[in-house]
């Protein structure tokens, strides 16, 4: 920012809403799912805000292929009754939701909007699972990586194998991530794998053990069925407001204290392998990584860059100590471990140990994915990054238990949280720091 320019306006999240997530919500259309989440946001949060107070929307969905409808943003805008106010569609693969939250932040911080509704959705059930995987694979390079039979579980398996080779990460450590997230989801009524509380939940969901994960069939070695996230139908809504408005809307606005966005080469193989190339965070020492080739295919430079920006903006100098709760993009158990390292929660190479030591468990020092994340709760792509923002918003307000239908998911006394949204093989990543 040039000298003399004013800082952007402070921006808060003031309300959030989710749908029940499911492998197939055949009972509702996309716009009906959006309305379900919007109703929760507007009517179930403790706010002084009416629908007419919303100045515009940011609509977040990933795939025109899944929806078989171009310009779906317009359908959402008119179905929710916001015409003729401004609206924009955001798309950025798996990070679509995180980018939409960041875009809403920019709209409000700049003064273009005072109160913005972010609406994310995806309906992935209208094609079969193999076709769905093929559509997602079209978000890899279709000249080079897709024609050889590449698809996302394969790409992440290649990266996970390299992480194991480089650092000694084990399949057991990955399984522990699956168990943590899946079992957290059993206390969240919105979660797809929770058949007890979610009327649309997976019938064969429920609690799992490390043994269940290790015995589940390989999808792409070393990744097994239970190491891999869900495909979901559902929607999520977050409402953001300027400082002046936020204080009138709620007694407990949750401030967006930092935002960052990073990128990397579309094809993971094109990424450099620079010796000692790790961008160092404030609490790290250059000599830790003097022999490490970075980022290669074992680490996500985009995630590190997004974290670096968000931490700088929010004054985070020791994330493990300063953060109380995290919702991150656990598309794979391996990528949760990789992301611990990108976010600076553990040294590069020590991510597996962090979950093994229980640090990221619901009762650990820094709970990660208390909602169940993408493995336990949902991955309705365009809604995912918004779900994470809503979850951390509820955590910091202290109402997560109320919304989830169980006090078990509430991280007690949480004051500062982080959201992390991730696309491609680490192609776009956003990080946000939220605070009470």
């Amino acid at each position, binding site marked *: 920012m040039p000298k003399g320019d004013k800082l952007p306006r402070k921006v808060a999240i003031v309300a959030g809403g989710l749908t029940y997530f499911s492998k197939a919500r*055949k009972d509702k259309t996309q716009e009906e799912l959006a309305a379900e989440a919007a109703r929760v946001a507007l009517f179930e949060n403790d706010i002084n805000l009416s629908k007419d107070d919303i100045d515009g929307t940011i609509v977040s969905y990933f795939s025109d292929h899944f929806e078989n409808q171009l310009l779906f943003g317009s359908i959402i805008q008119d179905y929710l009754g916001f015409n003729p106010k401004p609206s924009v569609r955001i798309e950025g693969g798996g990070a679509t939701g995180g980018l939409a939250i960041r875009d809403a932040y920019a709209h409000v911080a700049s003064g273009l909007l005072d109160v913005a509704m972010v609406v994310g959705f995806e309906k992935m059930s209208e094609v079969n699972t193999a076709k769905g995987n*093929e559509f997602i694979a079209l978000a890899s390079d279709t000249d080079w*990586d897709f024609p050889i039979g590449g*698809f996302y*579980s394969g790409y992440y*398996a290649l990266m996970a194998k390299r992480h194991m080779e480089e650092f000694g990460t084990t399949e057991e450590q990955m399984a522990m991530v699956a168990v943590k997230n899946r079992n957290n989801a059993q206390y969240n009524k919105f979660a797809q794998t929770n058949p007890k509380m979610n009327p649309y939940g997976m019938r064969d969901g429920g609690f799992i053990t490390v043994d269940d994960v290790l015995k589940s069939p390989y999808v*792409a070695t070393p990744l097994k069925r239970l190491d891999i996230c869900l495909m979901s139908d559902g929607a999520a809504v977050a409402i953001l407001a300027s400082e002046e408005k936020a204080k009138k809307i709620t007694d407990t606005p949750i401030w967006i204290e930092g935002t960052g966005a990073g990128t990397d080469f579309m094809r993971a193989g094109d990424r450099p392998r620079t010796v000692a190339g790790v961008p160092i965070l404030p609490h790290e020492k250059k000599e830790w990584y003097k022999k490490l080739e970075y980022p290669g295919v074992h680490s996500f430079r985009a995630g590190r860059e997004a974290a670096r920006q968000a931490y700088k903006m929010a004054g985070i100098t020791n994330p493990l100590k300063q953060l109380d709760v995290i919702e991150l993009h656990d598309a794979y158990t391996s990528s949760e471990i990789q992301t611990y390292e990108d976010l600076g929660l553990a040294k590069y190479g020590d991510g597996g140990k962090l979950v093994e030591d229980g640090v990221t468990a619901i009762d650990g020092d820094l709970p990660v994915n208390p909602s169940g994340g993408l493995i336990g709760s949902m991955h309705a792509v365009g809604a995912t990054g918004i779900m994470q923002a809503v979850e951390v918003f509820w955590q910091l307000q202290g109402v997560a238990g109320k919304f989830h239908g169980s006090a078990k998911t509430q991280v007690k006394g949480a004051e500062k949280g982080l959201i992390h949204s991730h696309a491609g093989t680490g192609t776009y990543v956003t990080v946000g720091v939220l605070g009470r």
Partner: protein
Amino acid sequence: MTEVFSIDPLIIRTPYEIDYRHSYGKTSPFFTSLSEGKIMATRCNHCKVTFLPPRSDCPYCLGETEWINLSGKGKIHTFSTLHFAGEKFLKDLPFTLVYVELEGVDTLFLTRLKTNHPEKVKVGMKVNMKISRQLEWRSSDIWAEPE
């Protein structure tokens, strides 16, 4: 007649086909030279970086790159055997994907590994790139085999 799966809610079949005419642009020589038995990459002589997949323009300096020939020798950087895939490739399962460190190339090349002994595959294993005799003008026209 529209095929109906369910009445409440009403669920119908909606097929959709697309026929693209896709240009490889300036990277076309990679594919056409395969018929001469050559595997080529591009090199930025300014940045001294060699790319495969080829890039016509260097992402580091935005200068134009030049074609070079490769030996096709390399070693495995990482690998995975797939037991599931996108719909189009289900018929090929199981198959093994590898990132190869190719001689003279700075990027890693993602390709299939064809081997009769998948249990012997490991990181660091030496491989040679092979070219299909029936070119389909896709990246699947080349693959790796153990040396």
